[in-house]
């Protein structure tokens, strides 16, 4: 395959970026998108051009490192995959592909396609945990039975990989899907109930302070989420928040 790539190049967080065009040949449809980027970078380096920086690590769709906005979609045209699982067979010979970083005020660009997502970590610091000591002196794991339906729902929420596709997709750069996934996971489990009030208040507060936008229920995040995290979680978080505000 022969392709034209238009890629966002930005030297560092202080400089201005721009789209740069590269042509690339001999791409096999069996390659993953990131392997195509590897080929491009090897070529650029052989010409003495600085390679394109991008985040990647596990390359099996679970670490949440990769963060490319491809042809206007987070993680590209396929559904329920991350960029590393996207294969070139989803494109046609001669295509032009636009590759940009995940864009949001809260995700400043570090270089090229690499963005800083530590705002996500800070939201987790504000309450994304259950305050239990790790000494192992807890009660037996089977002491509290948990309804299978709730355990499964909590699991589904917990599969979020924290990639930020929801924020990059949302026109308001809202992180509601990400935050609500964590709030829901714990709200659905008896272990998380004790701190539910403070958790939702603190996490939402931190989310607002970081500068993420609000949710206007367009549902784009759910469509682009590589793990299929459901909008139901946002509804659940709003309910939890309302409950908490009345309690306080």
């Amino acid at each position, binding site marked *: 395959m022969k392709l034209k790539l238009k890629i966002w190049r930005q030297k560092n967080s202080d400089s201005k970026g721009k789209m740069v065009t590269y042509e690339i040949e001999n791409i096999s449809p069996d390659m993953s998108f990131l392997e195509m980027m590897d080929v491009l970078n090897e070529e650029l380096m052989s010409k*003495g051009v600085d390679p394109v920086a991008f985040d990647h*690590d596990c390359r099996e769709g679970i670490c949440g490192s990769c963060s490319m906005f491809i042809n206007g979609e987070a993680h590209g045209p396929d559904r329920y995959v991350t960029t590393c699982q996207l294969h070139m067979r989803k494109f046609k010979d001669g295509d032009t592909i636009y590759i940009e970083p995940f864009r949001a005020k809260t995700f400043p660009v570090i270089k090229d396609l690499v963005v800083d997502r530590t705002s996500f970590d800070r939201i987790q610091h504000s309450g994304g945990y259950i305050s239990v000591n790790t000494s192992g002196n807890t009660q037996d794991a089977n002491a509290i039975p948990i309804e299978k339906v709730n355990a499964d729902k909590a699991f589904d929420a917990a599969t979020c990989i924290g990639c930020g596709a929801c924020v990059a997709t949302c026109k308001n750069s809202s992180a509601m899907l990400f935050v609500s996934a964590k709030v829901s996971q714990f709200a659905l489990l008896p272990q998380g109930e004790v701190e539910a009030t403070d958790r939702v208040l603190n996490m939402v507060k931190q989310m607002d302070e970081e500068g993420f936008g609000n949710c206007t229920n367009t549902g784009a995040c759910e469509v682009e989420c590589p793990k299929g995290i459901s909008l139901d979680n946002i509804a659940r978080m709003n309910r939890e928040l309302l409950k908490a505000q009345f309690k306080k």
Partner: protein
Amino acid sequence: MNRITYSLNYRKPKDQYKASDELTVCLRYFHKNNPKGKGKIIKKSTGIKCKLSDWDSDWHKNPNRYPIKSSDKFSIKKNKLLNEKVINFKSFLKKDSQFEVSDSFVLSSNEPDGPLAQKWTNHKNNIRLVSPANKRSIDVIVVGTGLAGGSASATLAELGYNVKSFCFQDSPRRAHSIAAQGGINAAKNYQGDGDSTFRLFYDTVKGGDYRSRESNVYRLAEVSANIIDQCVAQGVPFAREYGGLLDNRSFGGVLVSRTFYAKGQTGQQLLLGAYSAMNRQIARGKIQMFNRHEMLDVVKVDGKARGIITRNLINGKIERHSAHAVVIASGGYGNLFFLSTNAMGSNVTASWKIHKKGAFFANPCFTQIHPTCIPVSGDHQSKLTLMSESLRNDGRIWVPKDKNDAKAIRDGKIKPTELDENKRDYYLERRYPAFGNLVPRDVASRAAKERCDAGYGVNKTGEAVYLDFEAAIIRYGKEKAHLKGLNEDDIELVKDLGREVIKSKYGNLFQMYEKIVDQNPYFTPMMIYPAVHYTMGGVWVDYNLMTTIPGCFAIGEANFSDHGANRLGASALMQGLADGYFVLPYTIGNYLADDIRTGPISTDLPEFNEAEESVKLKINTLLKNNGSKTVDYFHKILGKIIWNKCGMSRNKKELKEAIVEIKKLREDFYKNVYVPGTNESFNEPLAKALRVADFLELGELFAKDALERTESCGGHFREESQTPEGEAMRDDKNFTFVSAWEFKGSPSEAKLHKEKLSYDNIELKTRSYK
């Protein structure tokens, strides 16, 4: 021979003493260069006293090499002190270059005394503690934030230490533990199927082909149940039954159901649990988190690990960090092979740097090659993907019986589904009728390689075998049809029903396969081939998880201790969390108890300066190198050498060749590598070059270790050591030891130390799966 021994300081003839008399223990150093010939030249009092009746004059024959018997109330403490004296004495001798010290016996596992089941409890009762007030003035560095590093950071911070955590990813949540699929073992016996701590211990030692340390494995089995309690309390959503209790499944090599799981994402859920525990401590200010930082050297002050040098991966800043102890939890070195199921960034650098500063590296050649991975599709491939071991419960593995059929399949002339049943060779069922498709990983991998090498491989590259679900689809389909009262002879209906069952069990794996290979495994058999997955070898540690550098600890996959020569499924997660949550936080206190008055360690010490300068020099050398080949070029060649010559089966000739080739490649690397850009920027090729430089050294030691161990055991198969049927043959007489390598300037000069392994609670047997 040069040697150090223990002896009692008799001041009059031995028979004039009573059994209850107390004598001082001395160290004696014998040296062959003594001009008067062989004899004692140094005798040093240790100040430790021992009753004659408590003295074991045959101490060198017992596995721990402890001279003071357990009849002495303080034997553990005293023996430990003695050992420390030896280490101090050695470093004194080393300063004087005319002495060459043979330290074969210094490698003590520091195992506590007593019966196996009591060891850990006894040890916990006897080790020293640090008071909460004093913990506040002690700093600990943890490198790596996977299951081991993350859980250790959280627990140490919770205990009151000041923790600094480092990871090269942009967030601790992205460490590669996240990719573990199958599950985590624990001897909970919730199913009432006869599981127990002893059984888990036994299965692990046997699965490891009797090359692991008994006391460590028993402790692991003992704390395993606690892990599940802990994780549930943290909100980890394990799979549950309709009654609301936890569900279990079964894994290869065992006869009970002890594996806890969260669908195919157990590693993710456990890691996020550890990450949440870390977040709690970060919020409290007890953990200082350094994302996108890579450790590039360890700093030793007065022989103890006192800090590290890191590079900030965003702006290239070289930083100094000091602490009273350094914990390495940076995972395994599977990326040595270039293609593996490890993450792209996984590397050996932290482990290798401490090795070069004095930490012994144990059993580097023990690598796990996982039998069910998606095969390599071409030269562009950057990484391999695992298909969970659980698939072997329902999949049958085969290749064509006839080479011509295999060729026709490779050429695309016939489809596998068109090949008659009697033209297929279900080679695992044929060779191992008792275990069939569920033989352990090492056995299954070798069998696949054997068939493909013989010319029966089924994909374009000739390196793939089939994993076929049709029999299971039909079996489940018939059951379903029977249940629903439908026609069991309508084969299409039966298959449709069967596919639904398979989908509910393995849906996410089948989807993953389809995305990557672009074939639908519900209708055509999967193609699989073995790939590097885990490294059992690693930094040598004692029972306290301390390396041979005082104050430097290694936990999780980075150390060598628990899996012997082969790891069982669902045991890696167990070990990582056991080390981090429940073992290290205790044992590190024993070391840190000496540091309560030390005060903060200054980063202005000359040792920090020296380490920082050497890191900068290395970076500059790479950046200024006027080469033309990229880092990946070298990494790919290295991977090919290791895979072809030190992979699933190894022989003397090829291992020797590998050593020569790797050495040459390393020279070529420093001459011809091209690293673009500057240090002061986000520069991935530079980070990669620094990692590959270390792989190029490790690779040589890896081959050397494989060459030295002429037996076959677990994942290490030496062609010279096999039975007439081609099965692995262990040599217990000569190789029941851990190979611990000491760095001596270059990998080829590395010196072998042996830690003898003894099995007092398990009988050494040949593994048979026939």
